[in-house]
C-alpha cells in the first residue's frame, strides 16, 4: 500500500494517481485538511507501531505502508488549548504546544524516512544546515553573511550588489485570506541602519540562467530559465521566463545527489545559478519541491516515473 498525503484539489496528486491506477498499484489518498492529528496512536510492545485513524474510522497501520508520498504542508497548527484551574494559560499553552509538536514531528519524521516529498520538521533542512553540507561537498556558494550590523557588511560586500533573503525556509504566510510572500531583494547599503535584526546577505551573482533540478531516485531532472528583465526573485516576471530542458555536468549531478542523501531526503528540488563564467552556484534545496513544471519541460514524465518507482518498491518488499 502507498499512502498519499495531499490536500483537496491538488492535481499533481491526481496525475500521479492516474498512473497508480494504470499500473494497478494499491494506494490511499488522504487529504489532511479532512483529518485530525489527534488520531495518532503509537504503541510500544515488542516493536514500535504507528497507527493513524482517519475520520471515516479507517485505520492506517504504518507497518503495512510500503511508501509515502507527501504534498502540502501537513496538519493545521494546534490552536485550541484546554483550561486547567490554577495554572496560567500561557503555561498550559506552551506545554501542550510542545507535547503536540514533539508528537507530530516524530510522526512526520517516520513518514519522511520512506517518502517522496516530505513534511517540514523544525529547522531540519534550513538554509544554514544545507550550506554547511554544500560546502563540504565542494559545491560553489555565493559569498554570504549573516550579521546584524553595517560594519560587517561594509567589509564583506567588495562593492558588489548585495541581495537579502530570509534565513528560514518558509516562503509565504497567510493572514486574513491574503498571502504574504517572503521575497529575495536587492537593497542599497546607504539605506540601512548601523544595527538591525540579524539578516542574511549574499553577493549577487550575474547569471546566464537559473536552473531547477528535481532529484529523485538517484537521478537529476533539470530545467533552465532565463530572466527577461533584471529580475532577482524568480517569482518576478513569473510569466516571462522561457523554460527548457537542461543537462547538468555529471560531477555537479553527483554532488547534488549526495546532498539530497545527506539531508536524509528521498527527493528534493534544488535551485542553482550558472554565472557568466559557466560556474554553477548552489542557492537552496526545497525538500518539498514542485516537480510538475520540471516534468512539463523535460523529456521525462515524472508522474509516471514516480509510479514506476512505487511499483518496483512494492515488488522489492514482497
Amino acid at each position, binding site marked *: 500500500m502507498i499512502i498519499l498525503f495531499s490536500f*483537496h*484539489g491538488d*492535481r499533481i496528486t*491526481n*496525475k500521479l*494517481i*492516474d*498512473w497508480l*491506477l*494504470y499500473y494497478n498499484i494499491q494506494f490511499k489518498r488522504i487529504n489532511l485538511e479532512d483529518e485530525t492529528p489527534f488520531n495518532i496512536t503509537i504503541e510500544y510492545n515488542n516493536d514500535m507501531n504507528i497507527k493513524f485513524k482517519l475520520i471515516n474510522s479507517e485505520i492506517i497501520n504504518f507497518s503495512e505502508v510500503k511508501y509515502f508520498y507527501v504534498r502540502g504542508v501537513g496538519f493545521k497548527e494546534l490552536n485550541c488549548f484546554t483550561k486547567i484551574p490554577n495554572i496560567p494559560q500561557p503555561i498550559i499553552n506552551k506545554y501542550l504546544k510542545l507535547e503536540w509538536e514533539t508528537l507530530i514531528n516524530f510522526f512526520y519524521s517516520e513518514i519522511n524516512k520512506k517518502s517522496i516529498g516530505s513534511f517540514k520538521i523544525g529547522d531540519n533542512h534550513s538554509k544554514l544546515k544545507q550550506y554547511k553540507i554544500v560546502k563540504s561537498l565542494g559545491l560553489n556558494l555565493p559569498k554570504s553573511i549573516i550579521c546584524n550590523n553595517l560594519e560587517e557588511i561594509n567589509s564583506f560586500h567588495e562593492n558588489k550588489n548585495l541581495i537579502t533573503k530570509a534565513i528560514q525556509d518558509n516562503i509565504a504566510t497567510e493572514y486574513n485570506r491574503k498571502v504574504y510572500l517572503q521575497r529575495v531583494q536587492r537593497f542599497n547599503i546607504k539605506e540601512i541602519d548601523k544595527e538591525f535584526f540579524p539578516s542574511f546577505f549574499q553577493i549577487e551573482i550575474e547569471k546566464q540562467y537559473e536552473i531547477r533540478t528535481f532529484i529523485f531516485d538517484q537521478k537529476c531532472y533539470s530545467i533552465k530559465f532565463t530572466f527577461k528583465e533584471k529580475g532577482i526573485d524568480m517569482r518576478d516576471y513569473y*510569466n*516571462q*521566463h*522561457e*523554460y*527548457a*530542458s537542461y543537462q547538468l555536468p555529471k560531477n555537479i549531478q553527483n554532488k547534488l545527489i549526495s546532498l539530497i542523501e545527506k539531508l536524509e531526503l528521498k527527493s528534493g528540488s534544488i535551485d542553482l545559478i550558472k554565472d557568466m563564467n559557466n560556474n554553477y552556484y548552489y542557492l537552496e534545496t526545497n525538500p518539498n519541491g514542485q516537480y510538475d*513544471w520540471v*516534468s*512539463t*519541460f*523535460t*523529456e*521525462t*514524465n515524472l508522474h*509516471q516515473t514516480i509510479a514506476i518507482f512505487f511499483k518496483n518498491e512494492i515488488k522489492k518488499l514482497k
Partner: protein
Amino acid sequence: MIIKGFRRTIKVPLIQKSDYQIFNNNDYKFSQSNYQKKINQFSYPSLITNSIIEINSNNINFRNLNFLKWVLCKNIVIEFINSPSLVIIQNIINQCIVSNVHQITIIINHFIDEYYSDNFIESILCNRLQKIIIFNSPFIQNIENSFFFYNFNRKRTLKKYKTEFYPDLTLIYESYDFHTYFNQKLYIGPSGEIKNAPESDEIFGNIKDIENPEDLKQIISTPEFQKYWSVHKDIQDVCKDCEFRYMCVDNKIPYQRTENEWYHKTECNYNPYIAKWEGEDGYKTLAECGVISHENGFSIDHDKIAEINKVLWGE
C-alpha cells in the same frame, strides 16, 4: 514556439501560463532557433481524458459514474437539464473524487433559490475541484471563480471567440497529432447513449448496458469510435493555414475527402487568409476571398487574397 499561419504568426512563450503574441508574417523574422522541438512526454495513461455527461435529474436514479475510473477520465462536464438538488450534486462530485477526476464542471440550466445559499455554496466549494455554471439565474455573479450565475440561456455554438485561445503546452502538443476536441472524448447522453461527442451522430451502445471496464474499453477502442481522433488541424482545409490551429478546440465535425484531407461543412467565423473575424470591418467569407473547400477539393486564389489584403492592410 512559433505557429505560422497564412497571414499571421503566433509566438507562444514556452511557459505554462501566458499570453501569446501575434505578428504579421512580414514583420516576423523566422529563424531556426524559433522552432521548438516537440517534447514528447505528454503521455497519459487515460483512454478518455474528458467526458461530457448529460443528466436529466428528474430521473432520480443517480447515474453510476464508476466508468470514469475505468478509462481514467481526468476532466468532466456534467450538464443537468433540470435543477438538481444539493444531494444529487454532492453525490456526483463524490463519485468523481473517488474516480480521481481532476476537474469537474457542472452546468445547470435552471436556477432555483437553493443554489444561492451559503449552505449550497460552502458545501460544494470545499472540494476545490469544480466549477458550477448556472444559467437562467435572475442575476449575474461570479463567486470565487467557482460559481458562475448567468441570467441568460446556455447556447451551444460552433463559433470561435478571439478571447478563447489559450496557449497551453499540453494542448499545443496534442494538437500536432490529434483533433483537440474529439480526441479521447466520451459523451453520455440523457438516456445513457454513448457517443464520442455531443456533436457526433453515431451511437455506440448505452452506458446502462455496460457492466464491466472491458465492455466500455472495447467500444472506445474501435476505429469507428475514434474516427475523428487523429484528424489534426494540419490535415484540415483552412485550419491548416490558421495561426490559431494549435490552440483551437473546434467542435465542428470534419468530413473526409481523401486519406489526408478533411473539410468542414460549416465555415469558421475567423478567416485566416485576411486575419479578420466575422463582424469586423472588412471581413469577407472564404468564398469571397477565392478559397474553396468542399467534398470535391480545396483551392486558394492567392492573387485575389493578395488584392484583398492590400486593400485591408495596405500591403
